[in-house]
């Protein structure tokens, strides 16, 4: 028990370190951009030197960098996320509006990744070195090679225009999420399919599986009791990593489908040079990714008794 507590504590400690480093790097963004952020805020033409000086003081931009970081991080922790340069709305409000659709999209895409990736990988492994294997793996490579913005447009053309199936852009509810979910999830599905195939092939060669076979156990029983159990467990870890790709992929997929969300917010604020929003959104996406992987690492030993917390 103490080993588990120890492990959890250490991982939480590592999470805090990563979070602090990520926040520092994100904080630096606004100081690395060429030009004066105050001028960006006020607009190139409108700003008089007096205005610039006043706002620089107000924002504390002439304080030492460490002091500025400290102020920023204290504000963040208290939920004061600053104000968007563009709309002057609190960044917190923008965030609140944007995260639910992104959460839905990521969940839908994760479902697609699993539904597409796992069965294909299992099929390829069980039929290894046959036409099935080759066909499945070609499909997987094409899946992970396709740019999501192209797949999205293809799906829009195919389903919404030709087949009059689903609402094209900005649909809501369960229907509106199907095409974006597929678009975002297929690439990960290809990655997962390849991973599952190789894992299962490894599992087939494990000793106890060979033993079970030589004992005369039938195919399906060996496959389900021994091979799949061993081969699929570690998929959980790669799914954790996939969350990162899915979260960052929302930037593209939300743009393709004109969906509101964190990705769309991020790209719009980059184009508008709205750096306070850029900083917060990048930080939020990164923390979401880090926390997910922490959870995966915590849960994984529960699923796989061979792994011991230490």
């Amino acid at each position, binding site marked *: 028990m103490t080993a588990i507590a120890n*492990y959890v504590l250490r991982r939480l400690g590592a999470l805090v370190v*990563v979070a602090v*480093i*990520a926040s520092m*790097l*994100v904080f630096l*963004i606004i100081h690395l*951009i*060429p030009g004066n952020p105050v001028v960006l805020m006020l607009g190139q033409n409108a700003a008089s030197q007096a205005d610039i000086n006043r706002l620089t003081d107000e924002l504390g931009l002439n304080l030492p960098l460490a002091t500025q970081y400290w102020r920023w991080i204290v504000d963040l922790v208290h939920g004061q996320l600053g104000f968007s340069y563009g709309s002057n709305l609190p960044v917190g409000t923008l965030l609140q509006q944007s995260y639910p659709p992104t959460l839905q999209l990521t969940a839908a895409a994760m479902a697609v990744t699993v539904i597409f990736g796992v069965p294909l990988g299992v099929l390829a492994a069980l039929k290894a*070195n046959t036409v099935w294997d*080759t066909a499945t793996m070609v499909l*997987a*490579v*094409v899946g*992970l*090679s*396709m*740019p*999501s*913005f*192209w797949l999205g*447009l*293809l799906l*829009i*053309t195919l389903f919404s*225009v030709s087949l009059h199936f689903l609402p*094209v852009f900005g649909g809501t509810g369960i229907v509106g999420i199907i095409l974006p979910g597929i678009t975002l999830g297929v690439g990960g599905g290809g990655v997962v399919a390849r991973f599952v*195939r*190789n894992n299962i*092939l*490894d599992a087939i*060669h494990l000793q106890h599986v060979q033993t079970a076979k030589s004992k005369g156990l039938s195919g399906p029983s060996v496959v389900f009791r021994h091979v799949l159990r061993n081969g699929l467990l*570690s998929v959980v870890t790669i799914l954790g990593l996939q*969350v*990162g*790709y899915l*979260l*960052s*992929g929302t*930037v*593209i997929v939300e*743009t*393709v489908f004109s969906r509101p969300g964190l990705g769309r917010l*991020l*790209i719009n604020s*980059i*184009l508008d040079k709205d750096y306070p929003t*850029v900083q917060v959104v*990048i930080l939020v*996406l*990164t923390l979401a*990714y880090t926390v997910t992987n922490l959870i995966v*690492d915590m849960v*994984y*030993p529960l699923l*796989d008794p*061979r*792994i*011991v917390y*230490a």
Partner: protein
Amino acid sequence: MALETSPAATQAAEWVEPPRRSLIRRLVRYRSLMFGGGIFALLVLAAAFAPLLTRYGPDTIDALATLSGPSAAHWFGTDQFGRDLFARVLYGSRLTIAASFVAVLIAVVLGSLVGIVAGMAGGYVDLVLMRVVDLILIFPGILPALAITAILGPSLTNVVIAIGLSSIPVYARVVQATTLQVKTLNYVESARASGASPLRIVMRHVLPSVASQIIVAASTGLGVSVLYVAALGFLGLGVQPPTPELGTMLSDGRDYVLLAWWISFFPGAVITLYVVAVNLMGDGLRDLFDPHALQRLGG
């Protein structure tokens, strides 16, 4: 099995070599190298010799044929201004492919440099350098490239720099790990003992060992890099119109997707083909250099 850091990482490290697969399987893998390499060469040549392959320029406007579908006159159709899409895809893939090459080159050079210095120096230098490189990996997927582009401002050059910098960890890690291994080999140690300078050891022993791994990583890296170049172009952060670039063309095509599917279809198909080709090539090269990894890493 006691674990130091992440359960998954340790499990991967303790992976046990499975029996070698059949010869047929290896031949199949070389087939994927040939196939991938062939398509790759074809696409690069087509981009290089664009002017010889089409009589249209990328910006030539045929005002009588706007938004016309694929035909004998315009193989890939025309866009909203009546520009020939076959020509635009050819010229566009020049920029996209060249950009992805340069980005990978930046990453390979800087990553190898970091990896070799870290591996050769060892100790604190190693620790600090690799931790600094790891900073990039805190941010998932395309985010580091996106953040760097946000800082530098939108342009193709900046996109290339951003993708190059954000891909450094892949190469730094591969090179550092191999350098550490090679350094402890008996004959390398005796070379050092007999007075060979670190530079000589790097040139004679480390680089040749590391080269094959870099080639494998770089060919897969080309796929990621071209996807990122096109993605940032699609998002409006790369090449600014009217210069043709595959990602930017897709973003134009998005506005006309209901009227003219071909505007976005062909640039996207070329990107997909290119990425499939470099991925197959990477798989094939990996098997060529390391037949033992066949089963584990192949696909």
